[in-house]
């Protein structure tokens, strides 16, 4: 007879794994990647490949030579960080800046805390915000969709002026600060249906709302994420901007505009739902999402940056330990139900 294995129960496992979850998120990002390549062409391809490769290579090197433990690059988490970082970058960004961003994301954002599971802040956003502060010009040079498809910064610099433009959010911010009426600004902006399909300047992967929602549905169906974080962020942004619009229709854009521009959907569905940096209880997730929604709108309306999703998520990441300490899941038998069956 064979040797019998003796171990405590349970003796079966769901078969779920870190790998499955990570690759699940990567699959969910593919529609948005396709949209990105469709709108921004060559630049989207260069930025994505550079970022993913750099993140995976940096994780491998750090694990092998600095931490001296077994590299785990095939679990998909480094590739996912790379993909998310790419999605948050403009597609004209020079390769060397992307590599610096990847190093900061993986090296400082993730590995310095002990690797997968230990980082308090979303690594891709740490990389992105580092680049935004360090290279403000390059990080806000937005290619115009479709006409920029065949160009990449550095290869064809002479056409740069013709193929870059502002994002809807920065047009709005500038207009408002110059005292232009809201209705007038809106005329310069793409229509809501154009926004829904991503026809606007912006980071590589954030623009195509339709593709992001599709990916989000996949994550929900596959039970990789729960609805709590995306719904609370989106709900908060909608409620907050609706209130502002009602108070001062001339000054503020409506909820649909805020939802479809910038990184709200990418942030709500893919960035804030990062397992490691979000709360553990459903109630905690709701608080976390509401916080992100409120801070995003505050930065967009009252801050100096036109967009605030990245900052909002990073700020709320910092609150996660506190949320987990005080917000506990609903316990069985805590409240005795009185209704009869």
């Amino acid at each position: 007879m064979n040797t019998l294995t003796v171990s405590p129960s349970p003796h079966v496992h769901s078969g779920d794994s870190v790998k499955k979850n990570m690759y699940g998120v990567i699959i969910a990002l593919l529609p948005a990647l396709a949209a990105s390549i469709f709108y921004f062409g060559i630049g989207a391809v260069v930025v994505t490949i550079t970022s993913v490769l750099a993140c995976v290579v940096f994780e491998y090197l750090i694990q092998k030579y600095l931490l001296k433990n077994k590299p785990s690059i095939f679990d998909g988490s480094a590739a996912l960080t790379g993909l998310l970082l790419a999605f948050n970058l403009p597609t004209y960004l020079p390769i060397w800046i992307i590599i610096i961003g990847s190093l900061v994301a993986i090296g400082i954002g993730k590995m310095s805390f002990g690797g997968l599971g230990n980082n308090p802040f979303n690594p891709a956003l740490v990389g992105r915000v580092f680049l935004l502060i360090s290279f403000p010009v390059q990080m806000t040079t937005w290619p115009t969709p479709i006409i920029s498809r065949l160009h990449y910064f550095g290869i064809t610099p002479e056409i740069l002026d013709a193929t870059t433009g502002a994002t809807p959010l920065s047009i709005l911010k500038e207009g408002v600060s110059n005292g232009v009426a809201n209705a007038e600004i809106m005329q310069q902006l793409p229509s809501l249906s154009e926004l829904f399909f991503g026809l606007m300047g912006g980071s590589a992967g954030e623009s195509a709302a339709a593709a992001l929602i599709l990916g989000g549905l996949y994550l929900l169906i596959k039970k990789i994420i729960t609805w709590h974080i995306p719904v609370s962020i989106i709900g908060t942004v909608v409620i907050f901007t609706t209130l502002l619009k009602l108070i001062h229709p001339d000054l503020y854009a409506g909820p649909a505009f805020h939802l479809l521009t910038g990184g709200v959907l990418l942030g709500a569905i893919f960035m804030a739902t990062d397992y490691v940096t979000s709360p553990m209880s459903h109630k905690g997730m709701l608080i976390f999402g509401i916080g992100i929604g409120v801070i995003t709108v505050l930065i967009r309306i009252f801050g100096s940056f036109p967009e605030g999703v990245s900052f909002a998520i990073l700020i709320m990441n910092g609150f996660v330990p506190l949320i987990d300490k005080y917000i506990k899941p609903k316990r069985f038998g805590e409240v005795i139900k009185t209704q009869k069956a």
Partner: protein
Amino acid sequence: MLKTFSLGGVHPEENKFSAGQKIETLEIPEQVSVLVAQHIGGPAEVAVDKGDQVKVGQIIATAAGFVSTNIHSPVSGTVLKIDTIIDASGYRKKAIIIKTEGDEWEANIDRSETLVKEITATPQEIIRKITNAGIVGLGGATFPSHVKLSVPPGKKCEVLILNGVECEPYLTSDHQLMMEKGEEILVGTKILMKALNVDKAIIGIENNKKDAIEKMSELSKSYDGISIQPLKVQYPQGGEKQLIDACIGKQVPSGKLPIEVGAVVQNTGTVFAVYEAVQKNKPLFERVVTVTGKSVKKPSNFKARIGTPISQLIDAAGGLPEDTGKIIGGGPMMGKALTTTDIPVTKGSSGILIMPEEIAKRKPSQNCIRCAKCVSVCPMGLSPYLLMTVSEKSVWDRAEEEKIMDCIECGSCSFTCPSSRPLLDYIRLGKGTVGQIIRNRTNK
């Protein structure tokens, strides 16, 4: 929408290979090893000596106190010795070894198959008979049944809930018993209702046993006050607190017993034993055991005498498969991995599950990625990831604060964890220590 419990839960592959297999009576073994500790509570005290002649159903060890039970001889023959043998825990425990000679039963046991419907015993007599018959919870928890039936003063039982859920994957013994002995189970239910002085009983059955739901619903029409509650398939619905929640929508408060919400829960197999004890004077010395597994040739449901070595059951199910990597006493979620096939059947043996080598070993544990899946599946609303960490770091006061003692050890957390972390192992460790700390504190 079918009813189920309100928090957490998982749905492992059901793999009920032995479903629908008729209960076969296993041949009486040549020798039995009857453990004296087959229940929760004090081990029974041995009441026979080496060389004594015993009959089937004769008491061979007596209950040591209120939370303990009598043990009866499952065979007739001679007591060979009182010795220690390895039991399901892997430790050596005291057992009575009997050599079988013939099959002579105690004279007062009614061996016929006739259904006795009329309940003549008074509530006191019922409880006394159940106590004498050594009946324990046959679902696997093995808590002495008479203790549950003794409602503490000031409390009132309003409903009897029967557990026909069999939420553990693979196991089918309760299912098959309902199919074959449905009427007996209903009479048993009536007996318990009389003993508890309640007029309402609910039999909870999961929806993967549609035939049993149909059959029991049909039969229960002629029994007043008994209703069948079909339930959504969700593990651990067979947990006492989860079943009460699923059936009557009441949650037993932390650290309290079901009677707090007016409920008493018994397993359907236990109720069948109650029927036999009260109507047929038959003590608990045999039970239905499922023998199953992916590579088992003939997954079966056997009626086996207590004390039969499990090797005999495995042989009867087609022998130990080549690829065996693990043998489990009970189901895959809460059962115990056994160290040898010499271990005897006990009152709590609901099944023997044989796992192939390739799924016998756990996957290596990885870092926690804080996915919160353990939190969402915990049926008690605990935070398994946190309980594991505080147990690992021996922060016992925090473990107690986080209600580690509420854990029912269902294993849903370890089952779900994408990083294959040994959550329940550490929580068990923590429960042991915290339980000891609480006992020391209350004893002072």
